[in-house]
């Protein structure tokens, strides 16, 4: 098994070239992720994000370089074998769901990896309540709306309780309420020690829940830092045509020029503005 002190995911000089048309989808990518880390991957479509995550679960094998996940070299394992190390939630749930009912869908993964029946029942009930699926459990997964189907896709991986979960665009098509469910899920996974890799265009979601952001452009990783550093880097945002969350943009043009910190969320920026104002008025009071 894996060395407990070493990285859980290790990508070394990975290159991936699609057989058709010689498109280089990934070039000299290095990435190390430790157990329990919550990592966001951002970049425009075609920058290599999904190719990178597909290398992690062994769906694609590197053309050159190495990908080792939980001690397993993906080149030497099948996707089925990798599935016990890493759960992969597709952007499009239609690529993933096949059971006749939502219940069966949530039971399938854990049963497949030999989880005892009573434990499966417990996990399915927990996922049902967490994702608000109670009304849909007997429905065919294709009969529920697309946003609900996406939640089913996420829940069907969560019930396997993998050590690593990859979420590819979990919040597309979701409204604010269900995006909040995904936000809560990532927080819960973090508290349970699960490692999460989240590919997303949803910058406010990432600003809220990830500790580290990997920025991709033209098949390579061009930045790998905290969300605060990444979103504060105006040049990086412009070069990748990405937009920092609105709150970060406001902080960069208000409190930051006054020596304040870059803010990622509403309460944080409100605190900074409020304390700046009270310092200002204190200063005014001591003036003769």
């Amino acid at each position, binding site marked *: 098994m894996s060395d407990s002190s070493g990285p859980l995911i290790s990508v070394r000089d990975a290159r991936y070239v699609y057989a058709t048309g010689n498109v280089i989808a990934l070039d000299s990518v290095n990435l190390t992720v430790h157990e329990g880390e919550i990592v966001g991957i951002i970049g*425009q*479509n*075609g920058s290599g994000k999904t190719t990178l995550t597909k290398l992690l679960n062994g769906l694609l094998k590197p053309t050159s370089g190495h990908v080792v996940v939980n001690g397993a070299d993906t080149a030497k394992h099948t996707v089925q074998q990798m599935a016990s190390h890493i759960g992969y939630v597709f952007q499009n749930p239609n690529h993933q769901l096949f059971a006749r009912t939502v219940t069966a869908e949530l039971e399938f993964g854990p049963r497949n990896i030999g989880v005892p029946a009573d434990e499966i029942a417990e996990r399915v009930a927990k996922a049902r309540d967490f994702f608000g699926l109670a009304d849909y459990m007997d429905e065919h997964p294709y009969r529920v*709306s697309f*946003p*609900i189907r996406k939640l089913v896709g996420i829940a069907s991986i969560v019930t396997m309780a993998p050590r690593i979960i990859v979420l590819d665009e979990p919040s*597309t*098509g*979701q*409204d*604010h*309420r*269900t995006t909040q469910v995904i936000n809560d899920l990532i927080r819960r996974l973090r508290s349970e020690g699960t490692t999460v890799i989240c590919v997303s*265009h949803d910058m*406010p979601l990432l600003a809220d829940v990830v500790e580290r952001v990997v920025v991709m452009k033209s098949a390579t990783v061009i930045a790998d830092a905290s969300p605060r550093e990444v979103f504060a880097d105006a040049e990086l945002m412009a070069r990748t*045509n*990405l*937009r920092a*969350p*609105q*709150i970060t*943009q*406001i902080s960069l*043009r*208000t*409190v930051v*020029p*006054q020596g304040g910190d870059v803010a990622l969320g*509403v*309460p944080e*920026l*409100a605190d900074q*503005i*409020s304390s*700046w*104002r009270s310092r*200002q008025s204190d200063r005014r009071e001591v003036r003769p």
Partner: protein
Amino acid sequence: MTDPIVVLDEVSYVYQGADEAAIENISLRVMPGEYVAILGLNGAGKTTLGLTLNGVVPTMLGGELQGSVHVAGLNVADYAVREMAKVVGIVFDNPEFQMSQQTVAEEVALGLENAGVPFEDMKVAIDRALGMVGLSGFEDRSPLRLSGGQQQRLAIASVLAMRPQVLIMDEPTSNLDPIGKSEVFAMAGHLNRDEGMTIIVMEHEVEVMAEFADRIIVMDHGRIVMNGSPREVLTRVDELEALGLRAPASAELASLLEKDHGAWTGPLPITTEEAVESVNRALGVTT
């Protein structure tokens, strides 16, 4: 006085086999050239409302519609969906599912053929529609080789070729990357400003709608619960939150400063620019 281009009077609709109404007692007027955003949770009735305007609801989907829907003076109940397509164009969130042809030009031609447009008029209509969405020069490309934003603009060109007076975009950018999103919204803004196109968009991203829309409608459980200017609607921070929605982060920030810190006076900002200006004023910084 100009007549409204969209008129719904006490419209309710129950899908075939459903117990509850998808939309209930909707009365709404949209003026020509307006840019209207409809917000609401998934399942609130936004898509159904859009489908009443081209007659897909109830003509193609059955079910029971009450009340009346008029678009550009036409009573939708009296026209076939393909006739209504000349008045109302709808695009959805999955442009690639709408692509079936070998080239961009053929993709736009398809709708024209279905509508019985004579062959000799097609080239002009295709050129015009592709020009409107900024895809001139892409005629011979394969739709499948376009970026997501370009595909969605092509889907929009295909409906624009029919010269509709109203363009409905139902979550047009939810599957697009940030570049694609800006492309589509910039193009829609141009159509609205420069071509006078009436636009109705269903969208979750409030910050984007605060920039573009003239009017915001909020739906909840099939009903319209708010209807007003972006400033009137998007500053109702607590009410939006109670509906499971949110106000732009700029308004949430000012609202929190007002409530918890007593550090905000004046209106709540709904855009980044407004927030930067008023926060700097509150900080006593001159820029």
